[in-house]
């Protein structure tokens, strides 16, 4: 059973027929080749597939592709401004060794985009609570916490928030 969907992904309109059993994560990776959205557990626990759905972080494995019809999705590919530059959060992950194997990283960065908007100067406890929704099996959480704290400082300096815009 296929349905046509029209989804705005990273600012680009995408029209595609999707199987109703496909998740949004399947759609992004297999139909749109946006393989930056990683798929770990496929039942909402690991957080690797987190994307921004209408500006809010959500699990792409827990939304059916057909449900994304008419909505906007931002993936890790849409985080950095156009060109070669990285987003300040990505810069902070590189600077603070916040990624090891990199599997959990895109999901965490998508969550962090929204989290830092709501918590511009988060405490370590708040960062750790947010990270509870993301599993890093390299278990490098200390560096991830430092990276997010560093990103908060960097974003405070650049002033008006760069893309992606979060509700």
């Amino acid at each position, binding site marked *: *059973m296929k*349905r046509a969907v029209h989804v705005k992904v990273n600012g680009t309109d995408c029209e595609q027929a999707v*199987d*109703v*059993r*496909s*998740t949004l994560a*399947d759609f992004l990776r297999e139909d749109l080749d946006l393989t930056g959205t990683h798929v770990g557990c*496929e*039942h*909402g*626990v690991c*957080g690797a597939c*987190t994307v921004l*759905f209408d500006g*809010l*972080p*959500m*699990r792409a*494995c*827990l*939304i*059916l592709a*057909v*449900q994304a019809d008419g909505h906007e999705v931002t993936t890790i590919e849409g985080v950095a401004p156009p060109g070669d530059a990285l987003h300040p959060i990505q810069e902070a992950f590189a600077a603070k060794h916040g990624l090891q194997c990199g599997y959990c990283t895109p999901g965490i960065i998508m*969550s962090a985009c*929204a*989290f830092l908007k709501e918590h511009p100067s988060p405490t370590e406890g708040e960062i*750790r*609570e*947010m990270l*509870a*929704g993301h599993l890093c099996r390299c278990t490098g959480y200390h560096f991830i916490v430092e990276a997010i704290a560093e990103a908060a400082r960097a974003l405070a300096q650049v002033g008006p928030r760069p893309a992606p815009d979060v509700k």
Partner: protein
Amino acid sequence: MKPPPFEYVAASSAADAVEALRRYGDEAKILAGGQSLIPMLALRLARPSALVDINRCDDLEGLAESGGVLTVGALARQRDLEGWARTRSPLLSEALGWVSHAPIRNRGTVLGNLVHADPASELPALLLCLDGSVLVRRKGGERVIPADKLYLAPLTTSLEFDELAISARFQLPPEGAGWGFAEVARRHGDFALVGCAGVVALDGAGAVSHVRLGFFGVGGTPIRSAPGEAALMGREPTPARIAEAAKAAAAALSPDGDLHASADYRKKVAATLAGRVLASAFSRCGKSR
């Protein structure tokens, strides 16, 4: 692609969804936030032949407070309730912080959580403690199911297969009431091993005029503790009485043990949490709801 095959029905209104439920009989499941249903499909624990998606039913949206009652529509996300609760209900606000993680609460609905009826879930126990109810509709009629008649067993409610949950109502605590909430889980956002919530109020003479004590994670359904409440009602809440009430409440529980916690451990933790919840609830009396 992990879910088993199903027919997808995009309902455009509550009436549309109710009609689809009637048409498919007990073969259909309602898809709202999907934060419990989609994992169950992925794990093949559920194999409905049809999913009725209510996300485009505008008439199921909304969250409104009126006359001391909070009404939550079927499409209100847990995030929406969180936003409302931040200024209006510290109890709900505290409890929601324990419901999974932000990305799940952004999508998951309040009503879906309530009727999924996970025994370790926070909100069903809150529905009990806030004298809540759920309005359900089927083809040709509606009824209100009070919280204490809603939960039958793990993942099982008294909703019939052709009934759609339309909204939930929470009775806000009386003015000056105090509240308490405590939970023990292995990690933040994990299922509760034991959880406890309480709402209390005092009369002019300092005796308990209102008391609700609820538990979750310690039985097949959320539990409102009759013995715990009876030990306090009409009396002055001295530390000794609070301790006695917590003990009586925990003694009446019969939790199961599992990989994460034995039955005995759960009971002990329940007694400790109940004592803390009641103590903090009484200490907050007269301050805010």
